[in-house]
């Protein structure tokens, strides 16, 4: 069965120069859609991507990636929204193209965040006056 999942990978310093993603395509027959990638000043890497392929192949690919000491988060951490800091003004809404940030309730204008739709573009980070959104990218 063809599946599509989004993952957030954290690469330890020793593995950021290892070409791992190409193996996902070549060895596991997966389509890879990279949203964001970054190597920080300490040499650690972050990668937010979407994998499409056979469910079993995706599972095997995850095991392969974990064998390098890469941590795999199925709960996306590309963007972190601090719900205590958010005031629900809604300024982010028109800047969030995939509508990951959306109104839970159009009457009260309570803003909700659907992580599965987030592509970590960072527009919410730039546009939140309260600094409620942050990203490692």
């Amino acid at each position, binding site marked *: 069965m063809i599946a599509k999942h989004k993952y957030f990978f954290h690469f330890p310093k020793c593995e950021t120069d290892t070409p791992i993603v190409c193996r996902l395509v070549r060895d596991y027959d997966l389509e890879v859609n990279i949203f964001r990638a970054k190597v920080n000043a300490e040499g650690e890497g972050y990668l937010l991507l979407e994998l499409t392929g056979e469910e079993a192949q995706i599972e095997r690919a995850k095991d392969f990636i974990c064998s390098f000491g890469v941590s795999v988060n199925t709960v996306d951490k590309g963007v972190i929204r601090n719900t205590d800091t958010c005031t629900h*003004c*809604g*300024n982010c809404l*028109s800047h969030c193209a995939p509508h990951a940030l959306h109104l839970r309730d159009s009457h*009260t*204008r309570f803003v909700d965040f659907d992580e599965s739709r987030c592509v970590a573009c960072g527009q919410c980070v730039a546009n939140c006056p*309260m600094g409620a959104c942050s990203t490692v990218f």
Partner: protein
Amino acid sequence: MKTYAQINDRIAAGKAVVLTAEEMIDYVETHGAQQAADDIDVVTTATFGPMCSSGCFLNFGQTIPKIRITECWLDGVPAYSGLAAVDAYLGATQLRQHDSANLIFPGDFEFGGGHVIEKLVGGESVEMFALSYGTQEYPRREFKTRLTIQDLNQAIMVNPRNCYQNYNVAINCSDHRIYTYLGQLEPHGRNMTYCSAGQLSPLLNDPLYETIGIGTAVWLAGARGHVHAEGTQHCPTCLRTENGVPAEGAGTLGLTANMKHMSRRYVRGCSFKGYGVSLALGVGIPIPILNPTIAQRCAVRDRDIYAQVTDYSSDYPMKTGRTLGSLNYEQLRSGRVDFLGKSVEVSSLSSYSMALEICELLKQEIRDGRFLLSQPLQALPREQSMKACPERR
């Protein structure tokens, strides 16, 4: 007809009938203004949004030996010290010293006066550094310490302009992105932003200042405060619709309250990329339902309140006075409008959700007999306009 004293007696007895501005809409529609005026004692209104003209007076207490402060910084943000020895005024939009501002455009403006005020209200300590030239009775020339709000003798928020009665809607008709205090505006009118709580907003429920005046008790970020003056740029002679509701800027309020009694949830430093820093504040104002006219005005709906759409790439900075059209708050709050032949996404800088929360909190305080109303000592001006600054040589 009711009086302030009668309403306060009912509040003190725990018998006051209080509705939020939103609840009042349905009540008046169902029962009529006359019945509503008989049944309802108070309507609570509120707003939560950035209010740049805010700040606070602080008294640090004297040092040993004494100092007459001439310059002062709180977490690196300058506070005005041209006052008595250890008094200062910290403004919400003050940048941190050496912030590169818009030198590399657009600047991030991550920290400023509004953030220091939020930290103080939240009980966090801030670094205070002060300088002086030294005098015989105030010999100290330098002082550095860490302070919390509990260390201060006074921390009194005094805001020259809050609660703008209405505000324009920002759009950008140029071919490049612009950064404003109403947020980031995309080119070719691709998005719009507005900043008002609409039907919940205090001065939109009292458009002719019949109950809100100087001396009116207000809920300011959880503290009991009051209107100390007309706000700066108070301009009652504005464009109004048939119901008397302003369709542009109009009235403003000067507000004050003790910061030691405030809650951090409603006092929030904020940053606008390319513009600067500010302070978002929660304000609640109770409106006594003295007669059917006031009851009717408190039933104003978003769809009956209009705001002017202004091009922030040209007309706003050049003060041309030109507007591109008007939209009502029901349209704006829906998140998408048809404007000039295009479907445009709309977002807000004012939190309707927080304004509703404040309306409910104030309603509960009044019902519990913890918040009495005060009759204005003086009405707000109803006949004055706003002048531009003359440029002379």
